[in-house]
């Protein structure tokens, strides 16, 4: 036996509580332990890099025709993913297509978050008449299908990415508003909110520093659901032919271009690659959403 006993824990005269890391650092540390979410994050970072790179460089210009024989198969020298019906390089178009998908997904989610959280916090906190009016408004919006808004905007304003974003945001903000309203209704009755009110906190402070951060978990989950849903809806619009305007490469449009060759007996690659890109991206956002929900739940922190 050694003469001296080394204490297992160094007691520094202060508290035994671990030095506190910040909310975000702690969340990220926990996120890193979640393999699926980590893989999703790595994929999305790669996708973001591809997206940024494609702004400046692609193997071929995405809209230049006849870079190779039409319907070249994957593996054609210089064209690892082959070419489409106009002889445009599929890899280049796939890279550029990520811009549209990410832009639509993130911008829509941002709009939905601002509008939905704002409306939800207000009606949940104020209740009464405001709440009743917005309940009606929300129900009216639920009755409007996104595709109708998209069609109307297409007819009125012509094709355009902004119109797609408006159409999707206008028909998905209500879920967020309802969710945040419910959270607010429950959190506003918590004792720390009453304590803040008793301490003379302004309504704005109560909403933003007391209620909002405590509702953040569900908001993040809902947001990460909005991103893939928006990407999918936008791709669906493009597939139907009134989405992203023509020469611009986007995954939905590419899938649509690959659909008719498939019917006429050509190989499925033109449909396959954008479809894979789309599905993996959607999956990644969903996995990341689950991971974030677990990571930022304060009740699970040690």
């Amino acid at each position, binding site marked *: 036996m050694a003469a001296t006993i080394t204490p297992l824990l160094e007691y520094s*005269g*202060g*508290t035994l*509580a671990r*030095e*506190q890391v910040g*909310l975000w650092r702690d969340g990220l540390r926990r996120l890193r332990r979640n393999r699926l979410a980590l893989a999703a994050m790595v994929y999305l970072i790669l996708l973001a890099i591809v997206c940024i790179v494609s702004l400046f460089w692609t193997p071929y210009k995405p809209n230049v025709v006849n870079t190779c024989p039409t319907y070249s198969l994957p593996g054609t020298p210089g064209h690892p993913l082959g070419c489409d019906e106009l002889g445009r390089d599929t890899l280049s178009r796939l890279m550029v297509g990520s811009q549209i998908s990410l832009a639509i997904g993130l911008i829509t989610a941002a709009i939905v978050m601002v509008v939905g959280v704002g409306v939800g916090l207000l009606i949940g906190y104020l209740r009464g008449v405001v709440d009743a009016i917005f309940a009606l408004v929300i129900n009216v919006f639920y009755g409007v299908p996104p595709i109708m808004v998209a069609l109307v905007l297409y007819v009125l304003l012509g094709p355009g990415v902004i119109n797609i974003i408006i159409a999707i945001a206008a028909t998905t903000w209500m879920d967020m508003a309802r969710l945040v309203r419910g959270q607010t209704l429950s959190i506003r009755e*918590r*004792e*720390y909110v*009453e*304590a*803040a*009110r*008793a*301490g*003379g*906190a*302004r309504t704005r*402070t109560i909403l933003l*520093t*007391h209620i909002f*951060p*405590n509702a*953040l978990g569900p908001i993040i989950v809902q947001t990460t659901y909005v991103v893939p849903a928006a990407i999918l809806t936008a791709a669906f619009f493009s597939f139907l032919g009134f989405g992203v305007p023509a020469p611009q490469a986007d995954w939905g449009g590419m899938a649509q271009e690959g659909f008719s060759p498939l019917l006429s007996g050509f190989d499925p690659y033109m449909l396959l690659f954008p479809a894979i890109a789309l599905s993996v991206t959607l999956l990644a956002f969903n996995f990341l959403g689950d991971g974030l929900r677990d990571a930022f739940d*304060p*009740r699970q*922190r040690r």
Partner: protein
Amino acid sequence: MAFAMSGPVLEVKNLSTSFFTDDGEVKAVRDVSFDLAPGETLGIVGESGCGKSVTALSILGLVPRPGRVVEGEILFRGIDLLTIGRDELRQIRGRDIAMIFQDPLSSLNPVHRIGFQVEEAMRAHDKVPRAEVRPRGLDLLQRVHVPDASRRVRNYPHQFSGGMRQRVMIAMGLSNRPEILIADEPTTALDVTVQAQILQLLRDLNRDLGTSIILITHNLGVVAGLCTRVVVMYAGEIVEQGSTEQIFDSPQHPYTWALLRSLPRIDADRHERLRSIEGLPPDLIAPPPGCKFNPRCPFRLERCFSEAPELVRVGDGQAAACWVTMRRAYAEMGAATLTDTRPGSASGVRPPSSAAAGAEAAEGGSRPEPEAGDGG
């Protein structure tokens, strides 16, 4: 105001607060009046649901829906808090009148650091200059004896024990140097040794800073340890008030007397049982006519069933709302040796016009009084 320095810092006059529920108007607080002098520590005691907390929330204008103050005045430095605007009232909350709550576990926001929350209480008002907010927050935490405060400000509430969180709440309450601190059951969620520490802390702060304290509790021991004056509430009304000595040494209302008998005493005969108060507080939608304590009072008289007693002076600075008062109960009804505390046991008075047998059965079961045809 001329009297601002010498007069009471808070005057509650004829305060009535009701909750308008689907079942009817719940009269939670009725015609409550009391004063609070600068630097005074006032205890408000009573059973659960007797209107203590609603009184406090009424002062701060925080009565939750569907409740509201229906009558009365709450004068803070001569200003009626019930008539001023919402933003003025918000400014007074936390700055001039602060409140700490029963459960320190849930009164701190779990997602913010302790330091931030203490500072936020100051940022809500402009009383403390911006540059002083941070050092003052640290100073306050040290003053309420949070050990190693400079490190602990970076902790989250879940890393604090219950007693430490209540200290943080007190630090937050004191951060704007309020004139009045309302403590609503500040020690109920804590164990006894921590209770003693928190009371000592409140006592020191009252002495050092001169902050008036309104202590709301059902625990008479806590009142004895901190307060100089006591208000006893029952069924939304004040039934007795006086100095702590008067209330403890010569309670005049049977309810106060019964409350004191339900306390364990260190000098009691060890075989003596603790006396509970028979029955339950009345339904506040349809309270019994006359004195609201009559269904539970061993000393009740006939008039207790028909006439509601007013708060009358029974001693120097002591007042009680009772037709009997304990002075008479001791002299005429043998209250000193009373062991049977069932309603009417000492006076032998039964509820009027209800059949003797029925009343007997109801009282034996220690239930609230049957209302059958009281007609008063």
